[in-house]
């Protein structure tokens, strides 16, 4: 498994989001991933079959889905999903990067490094959960907060030139008086708008484990620090390879692009008293897709039989996730509102009857 060591004191290095570098916790030296030659990643991509041979020799199959690896630091046995390319040893806490897997078609093109450190992610999560008075207190507990972990999620980023044509049926309406009657005149038009837009790196998650709609809400990502892939950026985080068919992800992204183009074209229709969409077509040209690892802080907690998952965008700090509702807290809030309404009305009506 791939690790990075400080050139000064030999301590293991981890990715630090605040400094955007691989940082030594002992002597504070900082390095970029490009400072280390990655011997396991050859410049010529290895074919899939050879990649599979490497992966099976590095770990022992436990089942169809799971593999056992040995931690080089403490010799502890680490069980991981076959799609995992980075994880953390549960015994010694060391970051483990399974670089033998990230070769060939499984090697990402790009990686967006974490910009939000764990402390900021925790603060953002706490603020998000605290804004609701009806969220059960266990979601604010240290037990849940300590489960927050940084994860690189496999995505496909699609760049596409989309051309669309829309037709709206529109009316201009005005009225006049004729005796006691109101006469309304309607002028009907068809409005045609044709336009083209370049959509750059629209993301679609390629992990079957994570809900697509949930992942769509954590966008947008700021790509200003996106880099060519280097496993050094993943030190200290968990990561999976893409396990969803690329074509299906790209098709879903193209559908997102089609939906995104419509409001841009509709705005050009202009102001009318009434308008309704008659037809819409969209063509995609120059489709380019890239496989990227995007950063997310993630935590899940079960409450009353339902699993609630929260995500913090590792670049922008945006927090998403459906907040659970405590029925007892809701009932308590309604009860207090009832008491206030009852007492206030009784006081007002009592005072008015005295007066």
């Amino acid at each position, binding site marked *: 498994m791939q690790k990075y060591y400080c050139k000064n004191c030999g301590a293991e290095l981890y990715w630090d989001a605040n400094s955007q570098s691989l940082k030594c916790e002992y002597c504070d030296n900082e390095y970029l991933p490009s400072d280390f030659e990655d011997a396991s990643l050859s410049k010529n991509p290895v074919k899939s079959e050879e990649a599979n041979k490497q992966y099976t020799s590095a770990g022992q199959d436990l089942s169809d889905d799971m593999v056992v690896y040995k931690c080089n630091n403490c010799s502890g046995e680490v069980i991981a999903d076959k799609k995992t390319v980075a994880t953390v040893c549960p015994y010694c806490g060391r970051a483990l990067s399974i670089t033998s897997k990230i070769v060939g078609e499984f090697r990402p093109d790009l990686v967006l490094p974490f910009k939000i450190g764990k402390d900021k992610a925790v603060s953002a999560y706490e603020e998000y959960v605290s804004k609701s008075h009806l969220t059960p207190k266990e979601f604010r507990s240290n037990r849940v907060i300590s489960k927050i972990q940084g994860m690189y999620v496999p995505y496909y980023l699609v760049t596409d030139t989309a051309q669309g044509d829309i037709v709206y049926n529109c009316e201009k309406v005005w009225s006049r008086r004729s005796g006691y009657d109101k006469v*309304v005149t309607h002028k009907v038009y068809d409005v045609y*708008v044709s336009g083209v837009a370049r959509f*750059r790196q629209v993301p679609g998650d390629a992990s079957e484990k994570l809900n697509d709609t949930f992942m769509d809400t954590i966008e947008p990502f700021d790509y200003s620090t996106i880099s060519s892939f280097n496993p050094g950026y993943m030190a200290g985080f968990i990561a999976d390879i893409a396990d969803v068919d690329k074509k299906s992800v790209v098709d879903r992204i193209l559908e997102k692009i089609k*939906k*995104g183009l419509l409001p841009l074209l509709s705005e050009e229709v202009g102001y009318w008293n009434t308008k309704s969409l008659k037809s819409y077509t969209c063509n995609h040209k120059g489709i380019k897709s890239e496989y990227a690892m995007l950063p997310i802080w993630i935590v899940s907690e079960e409450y009353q039989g339902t699993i609630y998952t929260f995500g913090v965008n590792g670049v922008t700090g945006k927090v998403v996730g459906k907040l659970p509702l405590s029925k007892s807290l809701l009932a308590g809030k309604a009860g207090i509102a009832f008491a206030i309404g009852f007492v206030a009305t009784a006081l007002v009506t009592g005072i008015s009857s005295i007066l």
Partner: protein
Amino acid sequence: MIVIVFSMSLPVFADIYYSEYQKNIEGNLIGVWDNADILTSNEESKLYDLAQDYAAKCDISVLFMTVSDAKGKSTEKYSDDFYDHLLYDSGVQYNTSQNNKWKNDNPGILFVIDMDNRMSYINTSADVIDWLSDREIDSCLTAGDSYLGRGDYYTALVKIADESISNIYHWKYEDTRSNNSSSSVSSVRFRINWFLSLVIGLVVALFTGTRSYIKENKANVPVSSNVYVKSNEFKVLNREERYLRTYETVDRDYYKPKSSDSSSHSSGSSHHSSGGHSHGGGGHHF
């Protein structure tokens, strides 16, 4: 001569106020005056006992009177003046305080058979005006009509009185119909206030609970993909408006003024006697 003149100048009601069947119990006047001499002594005595029972039951004055000569007055006026004299001029200190709207805290009822005007009449005073509506007075008098027709004046008075007292008792003790007494009004008002507080409290609770539920249950909205389009990377290739047609719709009488509804209602009856005091009542001819 002087004596005769003096005697002639005595108030016209002088002799008629005397009754051996008259008493004042705890501020309630009870009496039977058979000035028309249409009742036997036995019947007078029975009416007196009845008046006592009714007065105790409803805590009001109960009076029976027959009239032979109304001195040119209507039964209403005659009975008003008779009643006023008893309350205000007789020298007996009845509670005629100003605390209620009738300015008379001595509720009572006077049952009259006027042989001069051929009328049976009920005269009410103070709160009894509210406890006995015009419709109920009419119904009570109807109870005695058939007996008056055959000259059974005692039974007619008993029937009228029975019906009247029954209504008064019901409205005074068993129902809180708007009798306008201050205690029943405040009781009704208290209930209305309590009910209003309950309803408003429930509305506030429902509004707060629903608003909180909707707010907390709001799902995060997926971001539109057009955030990945730079402003200079969207271009309109063509825009065209094609005219199809024109049509008109007509809303008839849209500007015609609407007529307003009117309604009217009758009010209850109370009147003022010549002495300026409030009375209620009604009568039937026989």
